[in-house]
C-alpha cells in the first residue's frame, strides 16, 4: 500500500528515462575505451544505407541519416573548439563539461505493442484476438457556398492542427490557408474514429497530416473529374492549379472550386453518370507496418522514427552546485517539415520540459508520506528565465510511409535533455569523479555528490 502518486505517461513517454541510461552508457563506454564520446557514437550508428532498418526487437526505422545528424550537431556546436575551451577551463580549475545525446524519436504508436504485456503462450491460444494498427481520419468538404472545411477527429491542446491542416488542404487544392476552416473537435458520435484515434504519441504530424492530405487529394480528383465532364474533355486533359481546373493545353473555360461547388450542389444533374452527389471526401490513413506482436515478442511499437542529436556545454560551480548552460544545440530529422514555426515551438517546449525533469520536477513526500510538492510554489518547473539559448537545425529524410513524408516531433527534446545535461554535468565533474546517476539534479543533491567526491579525494 502506498499513498504516493501513481506514475503515468508524460511527454516523450518513458524515452527520457531510457535515453538517460543508454546515453550515459555510451559515455562510460567512451571513457573505458579512451575514445571521444562523439567517436564512440559515430562508430555505433546505423549507417544510412541500412535504412529502412529492422531492429532486433522488431522496430522498423523508416528513414534517416543518423551520422549526418550527429555531424550537423557537432559542427553547429563547434565541438572541437568546445573541447579546447574545456581544456583551458580545466587548467584554470573550472568545471566545464560537454554532453552529447542521440535519440531515435518515435512517433505514432502501434496498438500492437500493448499486447507485449501478455505472455506469448497466452497470445498463442486460439481465443486470443491479436491487436495492431495506427490510423487517423479526416474529412474535407466543399459546401454550396464554396467554403472548404476540414473535419478532424482530434482535439489538440495547442499543437496547431488547425494551422497545419489549413496549410495542407490549401496546398492540395491550390487555395490559401485562410480559405480553409478546420474543425478540430472530437465527438465519438459525429467523427470517424477508431481504436488508436487521438492526439498523443506525436501522432498528428505523421498520421493526422497523412489523412488530411489524402482526403484533400480524393476531393481534388473528384473536382477534376467533374470539371472535365463539364468541359466535355477527358480528365487527363485538365489540371488542378491555383484553385481552379483548367485545360492543360489550349484555350477554354476554367472552373474555380467555388464555381464547381455551386454547380455541383445546385444541379446534381450536371454530375457525370455514376458520380456520387456532394463534394466531400473522407480518408482513413493507416500504417501497414503496424503489425501485431510476434511469437518472439517482437513488435514495431511506433510507425515513423525521427532522429535527434544534441550537444550541450555547461559550467558547474563546485561550491554552490549551480549549473550554467553555456551552449545547447539540437538537430532534428522529422522528415518533411510542414510548419517550421510550430516545429520550433515544439522543440522549445520539449527542451524546457526535459530541463524540468532533469533539474526541477519531483514529487516529494515527507517521512510520513505527506505530499510536499502539491503546488507550483513547491513543484518547480523551468520558466522563461531558466530557458537557455537553444540553437536548432533540421535535416529532412522524408518518411516513405506517410503521405507527405512527415514524422512526429511533438515530444522531441523532452527525451534528450535529461541525458544531454546529465552527460554534460558528469563530464564537467570528471576531475572529481562524479557521475550523475539520479535525476533531478537538484543543487542539494549535486552539492552532496561533489562534497563526497572531494572528501574521498582528500582522504
Amino acid at each position: 500500500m502506498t499513498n504516493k502518486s501513481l506514475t503515468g505517461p508524460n511527454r516523450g513517454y518513458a524515452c527520457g528515462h531510457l535515453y538517460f541510461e543508454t546515453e550515459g552508457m555510451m559515455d562510460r563506454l567512451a571513457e573505458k575505451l579512451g575514445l571521444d564520446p562523439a567517436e564512440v557514437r559515430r562508430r555505433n550508428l546505423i549507417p544510412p544505407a541500412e535504412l529502412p532498418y529492422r531492429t532486433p526487437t522488431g522496430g522498423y526505422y523508416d528513414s534517416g541519416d543518423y551520422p549526418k545528424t550527429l555531424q550537423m550537431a557537432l559542427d553547429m556546436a563547434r565541438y572541437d573548439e568546445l573541447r579546447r575551451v574545456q581544456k583551458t577551463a580545466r587548467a584554470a580549475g573550472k568545471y566545464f563539461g560537454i554532453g552529447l545525446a542521440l535519440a531515435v524519436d518515435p512517433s505514432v504508436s502501434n496498438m500492437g505493442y500493448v499486447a507485449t504485456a501478455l505472455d506469448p503462450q497466452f497470445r498463442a491460444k486460439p481465443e486470443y484476438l491479436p491487436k495492431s494498427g495506427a490510423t487517423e481520419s479526416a474529412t474535407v468538404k466543399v459546401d454550396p457556398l464554396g467554403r472548404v472545411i476540414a473535419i478532424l477527429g482530434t482535439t489538440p491542446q495547442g499543437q496547431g492542427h488547425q494551422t497545419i491542416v489549413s496549410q495542407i488542404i490549401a496546398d492540395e487544392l491550390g487555395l490559401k490557408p485562410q480559405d480553409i476552416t478546420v474543425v478540430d473537435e472530437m465527438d465519438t458520435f459525429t467523427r470517424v474514429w477508431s481504436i488508436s484515434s487521438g492526439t498523443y504519441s506525436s501522432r498528428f504530424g505523421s498520421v493526422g497530416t497523412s489523412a488530411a492530405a489524402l482526403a484533400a487529394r480524393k476531393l481534388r480528383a473528384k473536382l477534376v473529374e467533374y470539371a472535365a465532364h463539364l468541359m466535355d474533355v477527358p480528365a487527363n486533359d485538365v489540371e488542378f492549379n491555383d484553385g481552379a481546373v483548367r485545360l492543360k493545353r489550349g484555350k477554354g473555360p476554367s472552373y474555380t472550386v467555388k464555381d464547381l461547388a455551386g454547380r455541383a450542389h445546385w444541379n446534381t444533374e450536371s454530375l457525370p453518370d455514376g458520380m456520387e452527389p456532394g463534394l466531400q471526401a473522407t480518408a482513413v490513413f493507416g500504417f501497414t507496418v503496424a503489425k501485431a506482436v510476434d511469437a518472439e515478442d517482437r513488435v514495431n511499437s511506433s510507425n515513423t522514427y525521427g532522429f535527434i542529436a544534441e550537444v550541450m556545454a555547461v559550467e558547474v560551480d563546485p561550491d554552490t552546485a549551480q549549473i550554467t548552460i553555456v551552449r545547447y544545440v539540437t538537430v532534428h530529422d522529422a522528415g518533411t517539415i510542414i510548419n517550421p514555426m510550430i516545429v520550433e515551438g515544439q522543440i522549445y517546449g520539449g527542451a524546457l520540459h526535459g530541463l524540468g525533469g532533469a533539474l526541477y520536477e519531483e514529487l516529494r513526500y515527507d517521512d510520513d508520506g505527506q505530499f510536499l510538492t502539491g503546488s507550483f510554489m513547491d513543484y518547480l518547473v523551468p520558466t522563461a528565465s531558466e530557458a537557455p539559448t537553444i540553437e536548432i537545425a533540421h535535416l529532412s529524410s522524408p518518411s516513405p510511409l506517410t503521405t507527405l513524408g512527415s514524422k512526429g516531433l511533438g515530444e522531441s527534446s523532452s527525451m534528450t535533455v535529461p541525458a544531454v545535461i546529465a552527460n554534460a554535468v558528469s563530464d564537467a565533474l570528471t576531475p572529481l569523479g562524479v557521475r550523475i546517476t539520479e535525476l533531478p539534479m537538484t543543487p542539494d543533491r549535486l552539492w552532496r555528490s561533489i562534497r563526497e567526491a572531494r572528501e574521498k579525494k582528500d582522504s
Partner: protein
Amino acid sequence: MKPPKFDYHAPKTVDEALALLTRYDGEAKILAGGQSLMPLLNFRLSRPAALVDLNRIPTLAYIKEVDGSVRFGAMTRQRAIEFSPVVAKRLPLLTEATRWVGHLPIRTRGTIGGSIAHADPSAEYPAVLTALDGEVVARGPKGERVLKPRDFFHTYLTTSLAADEILTEVRLPATPAGAGFAFEEFSRRHGDFAIIGIAAVIVREGSRCTMARLATAGAGPIPVRLRAAEEILEREGLGDEAIARAAAKAQELVQPDGDIHASADYRRHLTGVLTGRAVKRALTKVAR
C-alpha cells in the same frame, strides 16, 4: 483556488486604517502590494475577516533623506526603490538587493513595508534592514514605536507588530560614501525566494576594515546579523585569509532549517560560500 470571503476596505488615511484594525480586533489583514498575501488567500492558508487596503493612502509612499538616513514610506514600491537615484547614491546595497526581489511584475506591486512586515526570512529586504541595522516605525492607536530589527523579527512570518498597528516607515542609515557593497544570492530559479542570500557592506581605510555589515536571508527563522564574522574583518582586515575565516565563522553563526529545496547542511555551507563571495565583490566596489 479563490480566496475565502472577506470584507474589503480601502481607507484614505492611516488613521482610518487604524480605526478599521481596531474595529476588526485582530481579524483583519493589511493589504500592501499583495505579492505574498494574495497567494496565501488563494491557497486559503490565510482567512481574515477583512482586508484593509493601504493602496489608497498616498502619504505612505515616499523616499526622503533625513539626517544621514533614508526614510521609506511603507507603500513605496520595490520598482520605485530599484530606480531611485537617492537609493542608488545612499543605499546602493538596497538597489542591488531589489534586483533579486521576484520578477519585474512583482516588483511593480511589491512594497518595502509589505516585504518587511511579512517577515519571510528568505526575502531580501529583511536581510538588508538587518545588515544596516535600520529601523521600522509602527503606528498604532496609542502612537508610534520605533523598532530595531532584533526587536522586530520574531520568527517565520512573525513580528512584534501588534494586530492594531501598521508599519508606516522604514529607515535605513545611509552607507558611508566609498563603501563597498554586495548582495549575493542563490535560488533554485530566477526570482524564487533565496535558498541563501547575503547582504554585505564594507568600509575600508587603508588596509583596515573600519566597518563590516553582514546579514543573511534564508538561514533560519529570522534574518541573522553575522556580527562575529564582521568582527573578524574589522580586526584582521580584508585579506583572503581573513575573508575565509569570516566566511567560516558565518557558517557557524547560522542555524538554518532544511526544506524540500535545500537541506540545513547545504544552507549552512552556502552561507559560508556566499559570505566570502559577497565580501570579495563588495571590496571591488570600495572607492579607491
